[in-house]
Each structure stands twice: as structure tokens, then as C-alpha cells.
């Protein structure tokens, strides 16, 4: 009853987003649309920091679909001088920027019910969920995969923390556009495909294996 009322107070895009989870999604890896994404933020504190930009790209059947990608920059009230040197996004810049709510709407439209993939996804999820909460919306409903965790599913990988840089080096992925959301999303997408292929060389990989043991321990 409460949830029904709540639902009525929500903006259309949120309702549309929730509706996308009603039909049963395919549970074959080759038919699944994965959305690999990354956020750039003003800092590492979800409670007080803000998302500066979101980059995302779809992956389906071993193809990275550049035409199905997403890149957005968000207008800021809060501005953290210290992290500018990492992400290079200025408060006023020449890039087209949107408001946070518009950005979330576009992002939810883009991801739909796809499986979300990110490197150390916990942090990115937390940032987005916090932003959703500020808008009085619920949490993301998507299934999620952390490439950092996925990598550990390979044989003989110690249970330690692997940064995106380390893994890109290990998989010989040239690190262009590092620390832009879209650039990192693209790197992560390549990493994702390479890890999947490595796992497939070791054993048969089922859809459900992707999610097992996923501990959303991110870069928190």
C-alpha cells in the first residue's frame, strides 16, 4: 500500500524504468545486453560528493556497440578543486552539461533492465543510488557485475584488490582516456570481454556464474 502510494508520486521515467523489469529478461550470456559504465565524481564520499559525468557503453554477444553508448556531464553546485586534476572536468567548461535529474533520467532510459558492469562497481552504484535517493527515488534494480570480482573467478587469482590500471596492463589494453567516465567505461568493456573469454577457456560459463559470489565491495 505504501509502495503503491510512493509509486504514484514518482516521475514517469522512474515508473517506466521499473516496468522494464516486469518481463523476464533473457538468461543467456549471448542474448544479454550488458551496460558497462563508469562515473567520475567530485570525490570518494558518496554522502557529500557528486557525480560529474557518466559514461556507458552496451555490450552484446561479444560486441561493444559504440553506437549504443552514453556520455553525459552534469552541472555542479558542489565543486571539489582537488579532484579536477584527476578527471579534468571544470565547473564551467565548454562541454554541454545537464542537470543531475536529467542525467539520471537519461541514464535510466539507457540502461533499462540491462546487466550493469563496472570496475569496482560498488562505488559507482553507491554514487548513483545516493543521487537517486536525493530525488526521492529508489535504488537501481539491475543485476550487477564487478569486473574486479569477475577477474578473481579466474584460476589462481589471489583474493586481492586489482585496480583498473593493473588489469588493463595485464590484458594489454591501451589506457587511453583514463579518468574520463566514457573512456574508463570503454576500457572496462574491453576488460570485461577479455576476462569472459579467459574464463571460458578454463571452463563452461553459464549466465548465473556471472553473478555468484559477487560481493559488492568496491572502492569505498
Amino acid at each position, binding site marked *: 500500500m505504501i509502495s503503491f502510494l510512493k509509486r504514484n508520486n514518482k516521475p514517469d521515467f522512474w515508473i517506466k524504468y521499473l516496468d522494464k523489469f516486469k518481463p523476464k529478461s533473457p538468461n543467456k550470456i549471448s542474448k544479454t545486453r550488458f551496460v558497462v559504465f563508469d562515473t567520475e565524481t567530485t570525490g570518494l564520499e558518496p554522502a557529500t560528493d557528486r557525480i560529474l559525468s557518466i559514461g556507458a557503453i552496451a555490450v552484446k554477444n561479444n560486441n561493444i556497440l559504440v553506437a549504443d553508448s552514453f556520455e553525459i556531464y552534469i552541472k555542479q553546485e558542489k565543486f571539489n578543486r582537488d579532484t579536477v586534476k584527476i578527471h579534468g572536468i571544470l565547473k564551467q567548461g565548454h562541454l554541454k552539461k545537464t542537470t543531475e535529474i536529467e542525467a539520471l533520467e537519461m541514464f535510466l532510459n539507457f540502461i533499462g533492465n540491462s546487466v550493469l558492469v563496472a570496475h569496482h562497481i560498488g562505488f559507482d552504484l553507491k554514487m548513483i543510488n545516493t543521487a537517486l535517493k536525493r530525488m526521492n527515488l529508489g535504488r537501481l534494480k539491475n543485476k550487477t557485475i564487478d569486473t574486479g570480482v569477475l577477474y578473481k573467478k579466474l584460476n589462481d587469482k589471489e583474493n586481492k584488490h586489482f585496480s583498473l590500471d593493473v588489469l588493463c596492463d595485464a590484458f594489454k589494453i591501451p589506457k587511453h582516456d583514463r579518468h574520463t567516465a566514457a573512456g574508463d567505461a570503454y576500457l572496462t568493456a*574491453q576488460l570485461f570481454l577479455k576476462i569472459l573469454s579467459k574464463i571460458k577457456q578454463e571452463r563452461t560459463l553459464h549466465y548465473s556464474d556471472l553473478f555468484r559470489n559477487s560481493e559488492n565491495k568496491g572502492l569505498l
Partner: protein
Amino acid sequence: MIMKNTIAERIYDFLKNFPPFDALKKEQLLKIAAQVKVIYVENESFIFKQEEKPNANFYVVKEGAIGLFRSVEKDNILVDKCDEGDIFGLRALIQNDIYALSAKTKEESILYAISVELLHEIIETNERAKKFLIACYSTNIKSPYAKNSKGQLFANEDVLQLNKSNINDIQTVNFHKNPVSCTKNISIKEAAQIMCSKRVGSILIVEKNKPIGIITDKDLRVKIATGKISINDKITKIMSSPVITSQEGISVAEAQIAMLKHKITHLCITKDGTPNSNLIGILSEHDIVVLHGNNPSVLVKELKRATNVNSLRYIKEKANNLLKGYIEQDIPISFILKIISEINDVLAVKAIGFSVDEMPFKPPVKFTWLALGSQGRHEQLLVTDQDNALIFENVSKENYKSTQLYFIKLAKKITKKLHFIGYDYCPAKMMASNPNWCQSISVWKNQFNKWITTPTDEAIMMCTIFFDYSLIYGDKTLVDSLSDNIFKSIGGFEVFLNFLGKNALKNPPPLSFFRQFLVEQDGKHKDQFDLKSRALMPLIDAARLIALSHHIKNVSGTISRYEKLIELEPKNKDLYQSCIDSFKILIRYRTKQGLKNGNSGRFVNLAYLSKSEKLKLKGCFKPINAIQELLNIRYNLSQMM
């Protein structure tokens, strides 16, 4: 405000380095980049298989390597290997035909898949890109020319080069007006008789002035000579119909595309370009071949008729175009060397002839004009410096000065003309106009003798230039007597060869211990690879040295020297043959570089080479190491170092 697409820009950054994408405008390529599918393919997996229907994409290799295989019964024959920047899967797409080959990864790879719609957009909007794609595509179906170049070896950039260098491709084609034609009611035999009497390879079947069909030699061969159809049947039985038509003013490139696309050899030209309008002409594949202007004999004839230095210059320019055409068409390099050297020689002969005529009186004694260095070796493809020398007959002491002055004056006229034709003056003044290199035969003999018996560094350097001489003009006995004398001197002072050997090794092998290219450390060409001194000269120097040690006379070309050495040292056949192969590839590559950049092609910027080009270059270096090793052992060079 800018909408940013970081990923598309990254893909754009890659594609823009490779043809045909380098010919596209930035916005256009960005648009394509934004539509690319990035495909990750594991090792040993198929992208497509022979005889499958075409995918909706063609592919560009981003990283990794793809093998293209042809399955014949149970064998899979590797036909081609695609590396970074290479394109594959195109032919089936253009022709909407099944794949003729299978594509399979040879290592894990990342591919950019580009859709057929985008392909059409590229073809329709960009002439240069279109030309390139068609070239890729036609080499795939025709697999022409030498095995080492297979349409790809360093070839990519040059196909595009063509349009820039205005060789006909965007020019309109001259077609045959009033083509041989007949009506549809005659018999095959009658048609063949008409073709015979008019000496043509095709005949058009016309109805009310409109082309309705065509018969070519091939139809007669395939359909008649095989006995399938009687020669008394109506021609309509064997004619190809409808005909492919085009409008007047079609460009060479367009005509080629149309022929490739429809797998035909003749295009009908009609008034409005459709089969429903009046026939005005016919264009055959042969016409296009001729149009490429590849007729050196015409050029040499023209050259022989030339009456002034302006026409020499004009002919030299035409020869350069010829060279471009040859290189582009992957004509064997030894053939190119022969033709171009022949033209160079005749140009020099003409320049000398004109100069002699201009002198106030005839030469007082016999003389000989020698070409030195690369022209002496007949390896001067790109226009570089002129190096030459003049030998005159011995004269009495009191007449020496005046005779020399006469020949210096003559030589100045000649070098000036050569300069006008397009050969730069030699910066080191190794020209017959320099009194040092315009001497009597005895003085020359002494000069060589001195170089041989006192092999200072400078003397050795001179030898590397002056030992590659060839007779251009004048008296042959003078040259022969000089050659004999040189071998006599060397015979009496064998250690000279060791010094020459030491010099041949002064350029270290082109690769470092770590298989890295050795590049220039400083100066104008910092970080560039010196193709001439690191790759070509070691092969040239080694050939000269070993040829001299065998007293091989009057053979100055590097390839002919190695060929001679194969005869004389059959046990080293493989090594010398590999040196010939490397030399051919390297000189072709240098020529391409030079033509592309409008310079001597000597320095290569490694940053612009793809992985596969680097590998191919490295492949040429193996024989260099091997031949240097042979020199080292044969001439005990390690002790001399």
C-alpha cells in the same frame, strides 16, 4: 556547447591512420567511428566461413591477427594475413556474394566492424576512399602480381596516392566511338567474321541504335569453341544481355568499379547512360590498361626523337609518372629498374649529344662518360643527385691542360643540362665538371691505383662510389682498360678488399639486440630509420665487395652482382637469393616512400608504420645480418675492427 563522444573519438584516432579512412573528412569519419561495433574474438575462432552469406559488416583489425583461409577439400590454405589496420570481408559485401574465404583469428583480436550502410556512404561520397576500397577488393578477387606484395605490402597508402598525382584516375576515359555493331538477326558465324575483319574483340548487338547485347571473344571461346552452341545459331543465343551502360564522361575509377562490380570487360557508353538511349561508344578494360600510360617504348622513341633539352625534361617527368604507375601496379622491380635506367641513360646520352654539338669544335680525342653511384648501378629510380665522371684518351703532356679544359667545359654543359632535366647537382661535386673527375685514362688509372694501395677512409669512400660505374656515352675501350687496371691493382694488393669489407660493416645491422629498429640519434632525422644507409647500403656494399673479389667485370647492378655470385658460389645460393629478395623489397619500399613524400624516400618515420609493415621490414633485415656475417668471416674483419 559540444556533445562529447570520447569512445568514438578514440576509434576515430585509430581509423584515421589507415586507408581508406584517412581520406575521409573528420566529421564523416567520426560519424562512422560512432557506429562501429568493437568485437573481441578469441584465438582460433572464425569470424566467417567460406561459402557463408556475408555478414552485415566488413572488418578492420584493431589489434591481433586474422588469417584468411581457402578450404580446398580438406586442406585449409592460408591465403592472406591481416594485421593492424588491414581490412577484410569486403568483397562479399560489395558483391553481395558468399564469402570466398574463411576468416579466422591467429591470435586473440579486436576488430572494428563497419556496417554495409556506412560502406555505401563512404563509396558514394569519397572518390579516394572508393578507389582504395575497390583496389582492396579487386586484389582479393584477382590475386595479382608478386607473392611478396600480394596487393598489400606497403601498398595501402599508394593506391590513394594515385589520385593526388593525377594519373588519369579521375580523368575521363576516352572511349571508342562508332563501335563495331550488328543487328540481332545475324548468325554467330557472321558476327565472328565481322569481328575478325574489323580486328576487334567484341561486337555490340544494336536495335534501333540502342545496345541490346554484346558478344566478346570470351563468349566465343566459352560458348562456341566448346561445342555447346552451333556457329549457325543466332547471335542472340550467346549474347550477354542487357548490357551495362554508362554516360559519356565517366572517370577511369568509375569505369573500373563498374567493370568489377558487374564482372564485365566492356562498358557501353550511351547518350543518357541507360540502355534505352542511343549508343555512342564502347569502353573496354584494355582501353583502361592502355590509359594507364604504361608504354615505355613510346617514351624511349619519343626520347630518341627529342631535339632540345625542354623535351628531355618533359620526358623525364613522364618517366616519373610511369614509375608511379609501375610501383602502384606492383610491376616486378627488376623490370622497373631496367626501364627507368634505360630512360635515364638515354636522357644522359641525349644531353651529352646536345652539349657536344654546342661546343665550338669536335672533341680533340676520344672520351667516355661514366655514370657513378646509384645511376652507375642502374638503381636510380627516384630523381636524386647526379654523379658522373669523364675519361679522355691519353694526350701529350703539353696538350693535357687544354684538352682537360675542353672536356671540363663540355662536362659543365652536360651537368647543367642534367640539372635542368631534373637531376640535382652532387653536393660533394662528384661530377665530371670537377677537374679531379675529368682526367685522361692514365691519370684515372693512377687515381684508382692510389685509392686501392693507400686505403684511407676517404679513399675507401671514393671507391664505394667510383667502383659502381657504367658506360653512358663514348668509347668502350677506355672503360675496359680502366676495369682491367683496377683488377690488376687489387690483385697486387688483396688487403684492399679487407678494408672495403670493413667499410661495408661500418653500418651496424638495422636491428638492435632487442630487435628494435636502430634510429638516428640526432639531427634533422632524429628518431627516423635511415633506410638507405642501414638497409640498402649494406646489401649494395657487400655485393660490390664480393663481386670485386671475384674480378667480375662490367656488372655494376646490385641484383646482377648477386645473380653472378650465385653462379660462382652455388653453395651460397640461398643467402645471395635472399639478399636479392630483400633488396627488391627495400628499393621498392624506398621508391614508394619517396614518391609518396616527394623526397628521396631515405628516412622512414617508424611511427607511421603499422605493425605488419614493421614486421615485413624486419623480415628484410635477416639477409643483411647474414651477409655481414659472411663478410666478417671471409675477410677476417673481426681482427681489423
